[in-house]
């Protein structure tokens, strides 16, 4: 299995680090503190890259694998950052029967990332979701708060091109 280290460079600040260390210090000796520390770390950074998980492991005095095992067990944790533009493709029933699976595959191909991934330049991230309440426009995807409906795979390059900067 290929390494799951995010290809997006880590841009954590010293303020974020100080905040995380403070949280670790306050919870270090509390039994069962790993999950709360991880949740608050994700609140600070938006995701749990190896740099952050290593800080947690070293701060709590536990193996990195222990942190990683928990991070990959629970769906609430993510190893990848959200891109500047987060694309969410609806795979709910209505969208799916209208071909949103093909849209999703096209996006994966175009962006070169998998579900939950983020392009190395930090620009686009890709996720699936279940129903955004616009079934009449199926198949639907959202880029940040913008909704795109009645999609075909051919339309994808043009839409992505709008997000140049």
């Amino acid at each position: 299995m290929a390494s799951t280290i995010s290809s997006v460079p880590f841009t954590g600040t010293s303020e974020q680090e100080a905040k995380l260390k403070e949280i670790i210090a306050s919870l270090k000796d509390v039994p069962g503190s790993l999950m709360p520390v991880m949740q608050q770390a994700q609140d600070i950074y938006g995701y749990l890259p190896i740099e952050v998980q290593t800080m947690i492991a070293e701060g709590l005095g536990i193996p990195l694998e222990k942190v990683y095992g928990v991070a990959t067990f629970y769906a609430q944790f993510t190893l990848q950052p959200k891109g500047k533009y987060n694309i969410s493709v609806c795979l709910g029933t209505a969208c799916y029967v209208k071909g949103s699976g093909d849209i999703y595959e096209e996006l994966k191909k175009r962006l070169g990332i998998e579900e939950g991934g983020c392009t190395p330049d930090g620009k686009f991230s890709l996720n699936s979701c279940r129903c955004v309440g616009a079934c009449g426009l199926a198949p639907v995807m959202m880029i940040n708060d913008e909704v795109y409906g009645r999609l075909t795979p051919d339309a994808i390059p043009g839409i992505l091109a709008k997000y140049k900067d």
Partner: protein
Amino acid sequence: MENVNIKINGVDVSAPAGSTILEAARLAHIEIPTLCFLKDINEIGACRMCVVELGNGKLVAACVYPINEGLEVKTNSPKVLASRKTTMELLLSNHRRECLSCIRSENCELQKLSKELGVENEGYYDGVKTESEIDDSAVHMIRDNSKCILCRRCVAACEKTQGIGVIGPNNRGFDTHISSAFELGLADTACVHCGQCIAVCPTGALYERDYIDEIIDAINDKSKHVIIQTAPSVRAGLGEMFGYPIGTNVEGKMVAALHRMGFDAVFDTDFSADVTIVEEANELIERVHKSLKKEEVTLPMITSCSPGWVKFIETYYPDLIGHLSSCKSPQQMFGALAKTYYAESIGKKPEEIVSVSVMPCTAKKFEMGRPDQSAAGVPDIDYSLTTRELGRLIQRMRIKFNELPDEEFDAPMGMSSGAGTIFGATGGVMEAALRTAVEWISGKELQNLDFMEVRGTQGIKEATYNVEGLGDVKVAVASGLSNARIIMEKIKAGNPDGWTFVEVMACPGGCVNGGGQPQVPGYIRNTVDVRALRAKALYDDDAKDVYRQSHKNPAVIKLYDEYLGKWGSEKAHHILHTSYVKRTVNKPLDELTTK
């Protein structure tokens, strides 16, 4: 403790309160199959192989279910048998079944149980298999998750026995698999190469990197002079692969087998263990004398024979590596002498010698590649095999091991003292060192050579010896890296117990229970002290030895007289000593190699 009365298969059984059904059944000599269960370290009731039926018809895991008064248990009801069989069939559906060529064939707990449970169609539930890749990044071992059954024994050995925890379950549900953080290869983790994960694995998912083919090529290369050394513990473990009871010393047959395979010389690591002792005792005395003169010196001195332990201290206590003896391990001392002293004595260049070792250890495969382990300008060791590899090599060469006569090691590096032999057991290095150091310090011949206080398989042992000319000397012995950590925390805190000399071996019980020894199935491991049985083979050997102190081994005396000069001489230092490096637990990202 109070006893509780229960009924198992209609028979009255009385067992101590707090016992599990499994323990109570054992008292009544009723066998319940287990698979994931490892006493003390992996009691998680995960595999469901040990299910039994209660009076109310419920199936429960016997390994974790506590007994209570009046409990009725059936261990072989139709419901139980059907459940175990189905569980096994489901396990097999996600297991890459290649039993004909699998390294664990005939020694596989899954295979054995499957047969015993009456599985008729091993592919009954076949469907999609969990995706996996082979991790061969580490120098010492391979992980093939396609054969993993997620019993988590390896995880328990790494985390609980060794206190390291570089492997664990990642992801969830059908995607669950055992590997390291961020799916990095083992080579990029703080793995110390001890191989305890391999020792407890019930299937062929974990195994050592195998060099049997290379050895066969070397033996048949007429331009090479191929020599082999065997560690003390190999003779106490190898027999298990040929049907001998655990703890049988098969030294003579092992030597005979090696002679027949065509090695040019068959030598004994016990010899270089003796050399290790004279160098280490000399170093200890030097440090103690310096300390008496109030010179700056690091005490306690800690042994450096166990490469898993050495990597552990380098990784977890890098600021304390000054405590390590600078002595190479017996494997490396042997290799260094083979390519200098021995090569010169037979008129060969170091490059013409192929130096092979057989070790109860997987970390030796890592140690041979460390820096500062090439006394003659070429690596001291060319191949390091485990006891298991030697067993397989003997089988490959179709040698009828059990019918061999007993033969003796070759001269000059086959001669050893009993002190060298007991190196394989926890406390053995300490005892061997004391047999020499105490005599050298007091200047008087030791009357009693048995230091019983440091024997036995307890994880941590302490003793105080009154040494004439020095007073009370306090020593400590630890085996298993979780125990080593306890010792190291004390040393870090200023050594409050005043230890002068400390022995640490990475594997619990010492090398006899090393990660390269023949695998002992869980159902035996859980009921028999394998470490004690194998160690006894070594202590019995020692008791019979003519020479029982390393410095009295005539071959060692000759080595120093003819070649090295005095113990601790400059030449001895050049050939027999090494240096250590500081490491980090989590590698910096730019140093990762398996991304």
